[in-house]
Structures are given as structure tokens and as C-alpha cells.
């Protein structure tokens, strides 16, 4: 999409957010909800809308780990980093995922099909150790289950 077209689209997305009203998080969420990430051009548009400097918007967007600055993969595998998952073998699952996919945490496979995301505990600890496949809680899993899950996703 050409920049001017994207600018218009983002300006439309964030049109209701006001300066000095606690709206920056809302604006960034609106952009991420629409595109799946916060494109670079959005920083400029959001900054203009909220009367902030671009640096401030970029600073905030990079502070929060849930804002992505690059397009998401087709299927996002979030790994729960919580303590209950850790006790139940979460770190073994992480090793299994990274080896099986050949990527590290926070990276996507070269074909952009699968990506690994560092998830924060959402309190569904009865399913520990767990993964969220595109947001859907999957667990309890062993490292072997995780290997099988990833292989199925790779083949699908």
C-alpha cells in the first residue's frame, strides 16, 4: 500500500483519539488490531493526531512488549513464561520449540508461516505447561507434545 493511502487509513482508524486524554495506548492498540502490528508510518500519524513527537510515540511503542513493529506470522505460537508453566516443564517446551522451528523466541520462520512469541501468564494455570496457538490456550503439554504440535502446524 502506498504511504499516502496508509496514512489516510490510519488517520481514519485513530480519528477519535484526543491529545492529553490518555489515548496513546488506545490508538496503538487500534492500529495493531487492524494491521496485526504497528507499521512505521503509523508512528507519524498517531503522533500528529495526539500532538506528540514521533519519538515519544516510538518510545512508547517499543516499551511495551505486546506491540509488534513487524508483521505477525500466519500462525503465532505464544509460549507461556509463567512460573507454574515453568514448574511443569515450560522451559523444556521452549527448547523443543526453538530446536524444532530453528528460530529463537520473538522470531518468525523464514517463510513467515510460524512465529514464536514470549507470552505472559494469563492465569489459565490448570492447563500448564501451555502454549497459545493464535491465542487459543493449548495444554497441558509435554515437550514431546510441543514437538508434535509444531510438526502438524508446519505440515498444515
Amino acid at each position, binding site marked *: 500500500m502506498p504511504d499516502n493511502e496508509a496514512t489516510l487509513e490510519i488517520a481514519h482508524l485513530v480519528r477519535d483519539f484526543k491529545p*492529553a486524554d*490518555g*489515548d*496513546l*495506548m*488506545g490508538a*496503538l*492498540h487500534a492500529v495493531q488490531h487492524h494491521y496485526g502490528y504497528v507499521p512505521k508510518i503509523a508512528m507519524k500519524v498517531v503522533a500528529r493526531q*495526539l500532538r*506528540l513527537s514521533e519519538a*515519544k510515540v516510538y*518510545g*512508547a511503542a517499543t*516499551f*511495551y*512488549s*505486546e*506491540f509488534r513493529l513487524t508483521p505477525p506470522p500466519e500462525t503465532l505460537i505464544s509460549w507461556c*513464561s*509463567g*512460573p*507454574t508453566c*515453568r*514448574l511443569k*516443564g515450560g*522451559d*523444556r*517446551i*521452549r*527448547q*523443543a520449540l526453538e*530446536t*524444532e522451528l530453528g528460530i529463537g523466541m520473538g522470531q518468525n520462520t523464514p517463510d513467515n508461516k510460524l512465529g514464536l512469541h514470549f*507470552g*505472559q*501468564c*494469563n*492465569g*489459565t*494455570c*490448570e*492447563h*500448564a505447561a*501451555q502454549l497459545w496457538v493464535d*491465542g*487459543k*490456550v493449548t*495444554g497441558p503439554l*509435554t*515437550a*514431546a*507434545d*510441543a*514437538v*508434535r504440535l509444531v510438526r502438524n502446524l508446519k505440515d498444515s
Partner: protein
Amino acid sequence: MPTFEELRQQGQAAWAAVEKPERPRFVVSINTSSIAAGARETYAALEKLAPSLGFDLMQTGDDGITWAEPIVQVRKPDGQHVLYGNVTADRTEAFAAAAVKGVAQDHAVGVIHGSAEGVPMLWDLDWAKMQVRWLMYNCGVIDPESIDHYIGRGGYQQFIDAAQMSRDDLINIVKGSTLRGHSGSFFSTGTKWQFLKDAATEPKYLVCNADEGDPGGWVNRVVMESDPHMLIEGLLIGAYATGATWGWIYLREEYPLAYERLNNAIAACRERGILGEDALGTGVKFDCEVVRGAGAYVCGDETGLISSINDERGMPRIKPPFPAQSGVLGKPTNVNNVETYACVTTLLRVGAETFSSVGTEANRGTKMFTLSGACEKTGCIEVPFGIKVNELLAGIGGIANGRQFKALQQGGPLSGLLPASIAGDLALEPEPFRALGVGMGGGGLIFLDDTHCVVDLNVMVAHFVEDESCARCTTCRIGNQRMVEIFERTARGEGREEDEGRLTQLFASMVFSNCLHGALSPTIARNTLQYFREEYDAHLHEHRCPAKVCQGLIKYVVVGNSPALAEAAKICPDHIAASGPQPDTDGRCSRGGACCDVAPGDIAVEDRYTDIVPLRVIAPADVARSG
């Protein structure tokens, strides 16, 4: 706008239809935990069966019985009310047929009202007996998306009552109740409200801290997903008491369902004139909105949270000025967490006298806790302050699989790690924890058993606090980086003798961080040296992980050759051969021991270093590097 009396009558009629149904009514718990267990699929399956079997269907929030999700309650016209568990979608057909006709014995957990042969009363179960359901009064009872249900069960009456008192009387009731912030800080709520009321500048703001970042705790989620109006009513009461006119609920990104339900509740309140220019004709002007965080733990600190609402990086700042002097947009602001606001509503509902009859001298009332880890039953409970950890543990079925209770990790990664011998007799209220130099925290209780490794947990915690540091204070930023390195190398068997001294130095210096995140980061590490010395020393000096968890200290050895080994070879082709032991592998598994999950009988987990390896001589270069 309707008057409160009209809303009340409408609400009571709606609630009566639930309580005294004309035909069987199935109530499905829909919350983040149950959705993970497949409750949405259960609901859809029941929806298909409803017309032919002749029952009505309704959703509810979370009653805390996470261990038996998906949960369906069945209310009958004769008053019988039974709670069923483990109703997965594939079992709905047999379940619904049995439950409509009589009782579905296979799924029955307990009877809530009436009687059913062979099924115990729910509130006689060990799990339930110790509980007092005040904050959770509506949890798992009403439809969280129905304001009528909430009002029908007495909702918003507390606000009406409060608005008839003088603001000083109201604040005095809150002060007199001993209510203190339930997030873990335990600072007097009434005093905080007084600060805001006395602030000279206007407008004033309320903020609800719903950034429940402590991993392993989800009490606020239960309230927001099950009873969002209780929180909004608490905010309204606070608004009247302090003179605040606008509120923000700062909600963490990980709770999308709570976001949906809070927004639904706020919209319903605006429609009925409960939020707006003149709340229910009382003259109170107040409205609020939800702001979503984006995965920053440190925004749970009140000044970090305020920075985040102020369009900035969510970095805590130095106090003073305190939020009551200069908070959101530079205006006087009061920050309480979800449970605290809900507790104000509760206090007015049960009355100050009843409220003070429960709990301990210093801490009246109840506290919600979430239980996870090695315990038999995972879930959320509400108990009076002062209950012993061991009593609570007994009520939830003890430690699972007949293992030993080893340690308690309470209240998030900043609060501490206590051995069972000390934690077991501890009363659940802030003071006994403080006396040990740790915190009780916001309500998460994680139980460890003897198969868990505390050094491994420290690696996780160190990574967490390092990652979530806002990086303003050198002590926190660099101190936590060093802690990660120390625990990582200890877990690999490369710990150094001088590490202990370095850790002690870190403990002493990190307390000088500006906010509590930095100051409390080393708590669990300190507790580890204090209480789990033997285990730490085994890692450090013998390069041995007693629980055989730390991957760098164990090896996977093929010892059998059953058919399962072929399957293991498929999972881990790089180091397991289907034909049996390979002479040249070094026993490392690049997939975290997935092979052993598949063929536990054929692959043994053994210590990697069997003879004590002498510690490395400290090279001067090393000392210089880690300074």
C-alpha cells in the same frame, strides 16, 4: 432516564426468572480458564440440544472451580440446583439428557440448593467449607453481561446508600473497616481516599489498577470477568467519597474477555444513567473508560501505570509528588486495584459490623487467592484473612500425586519463596510475611513439590524481573542482568564460588532502586540462599541438580529398547536411535527431553557430572569482567 426503583424492579424480575425457572436452566461458566477447557464448545453443543430437550441456556462468570471446568449448573423449577463439572462438548448429549430428567451422576460436583441423591452439598466440600464468598458473591452466579442480574441481586444499592451519607462518614467507614489495598501493598484505602478528597486541585481522577501482572495470580480477572459491575460500583462509591469525576481502568492486555465485559458493563451503565452527569439521580458526576496495557509488568506500579495513561513509556517515577497530589494529566489521582474497589462495595453490602466479624484483628474481611502449581485443585477461592496455608492446602486436596509440599511461591515474583516448614504455619495476612522479610502479594499462591527445582525457578524469576525492569535505575537494570547471569551459569554447572558474595552485594545494592520492582527483585534469590542452601550448594559445588530439572546438569541415557524407543527416535532423531544406545552421544537433548516424555521406561535421566568437579580457579580477568 429510569429511576433506580424502576431499575430495581426490572432487575428483580430478571433475577427471579433465573432463580425460579419455569423449565430447567443450564448455566455455563464462560471465563478465560473455562474457555481454555472448551466451555465455548460446550455452550454451542448445549445450544443445539436445548430445543429438543426443553431447557434454557445462560452464561455465567467464574466460580473459581477451575479444576472441574467446563462447569455447567442446572437449576430446576422445583428449586434443585446442582453444579456439574468436566462437561466437555463431546459428553454434552448424555449429560444434558440425564441432567434434564434427574441428576447426571457422572459429572455431579455438588448440590447448591435442594437435594440430589448421592451428591454432596457443594458448601460441605472441604474446598468450600473454609470459604466466605463476599467478593465472589456474584461470581459464577449471575450473567456478567446482564446489569439486570446484578441489580436484581442488590447491586448499586450500596452506591445509593453511600450517596446518602456525608463524604466524611463514608471515608470513616472505609477507614474503620481496616480495609487496605489488596494488591500487595496493604496501604489503608480510607487514608488514600482522604488524601484525594483533601486535594485542592480539580478535576480529580480515579484509577483502577487492573494490570494484574504477577504471573500465577488471576484474582482480579475472576472479579472482572464474573462481576464487572461490582468494580464499577466501587469506583462510583469512591468517586462520591473523593469528588473524582473521571476514572480509568488500566487493564492488562492478556485479559481480552475482561475487556469485553467491562466495556459491556460501562455501556449498560451509561444507558441507564448510572455513569454520567447525574448517577441515578444522586447528583454524582462520574464516568470511566478502560485503557489497555500492552505487556509491561512494571505498569502495575502506580506511578508506572499513571505514566502509561499519560501517553508515555510506563516507567515508574520518584515519589513525591504522590498521585493524590499529581497523577494522571498532572491532576490529583487515587489508584486502587480491582479487588480493593470491589471490597468497598462488599463492605457496604454486608455492613461494617458483619465485615469486621470475619478475619483477624488487623485485617478484617476476606481475601481472594488463586492456587496453582503442585496442588491437587487449581482454582480461585475467597477465605477470611488469617487462615493458615496448611489449612488452605488441606482444603484443596493437598499436593497432587502424593508428592511432598516443598515450598510456597506467593504473590508474584517479587514477594518471596518460603519452604513448606515455614510457609505451612503462616497465617495468610500481610504481617506474618512481613516479619520474615517477604510479602504476601496480591493473591497468587504457587505450590512447589519435591520434583521442582528452586534454582530453575530462580532462572525464570531472574529473567522475568530483568526483562520487565523499566531500566531507569542502574541498580535494577544492571543488578538484574547480573542475577540472570549468575543463576544461568549455576544451573549449567558453571557457578563460581565468588557468586554468593556477589549475590549478597546485589541484594544490598538493589534496595536502593527507586520503585519496588527493583528493590524487591532479589527477594526470591535471597530466600533461596536463606532457606534452600543445600539445593543451591549442590548446583554450585557438586554440579548436580537434586530434582534433575536443570538441563545443563542432567543427561538422557538410553537404557531400554521397548517399542516406545522407536517413537522417541522420531521425536528426537538427532540423539536417539531406534535401535538402542548410541555410543557417541553425550546425552544432551536439544528438545528439552521430549524423547523421555515418549519413552520414559527406555530413557533414564541421570546426573551429568557424577564425580565432584573441582571449582574453577578464579582468574583475575573474570573478577574484572563481572566487577
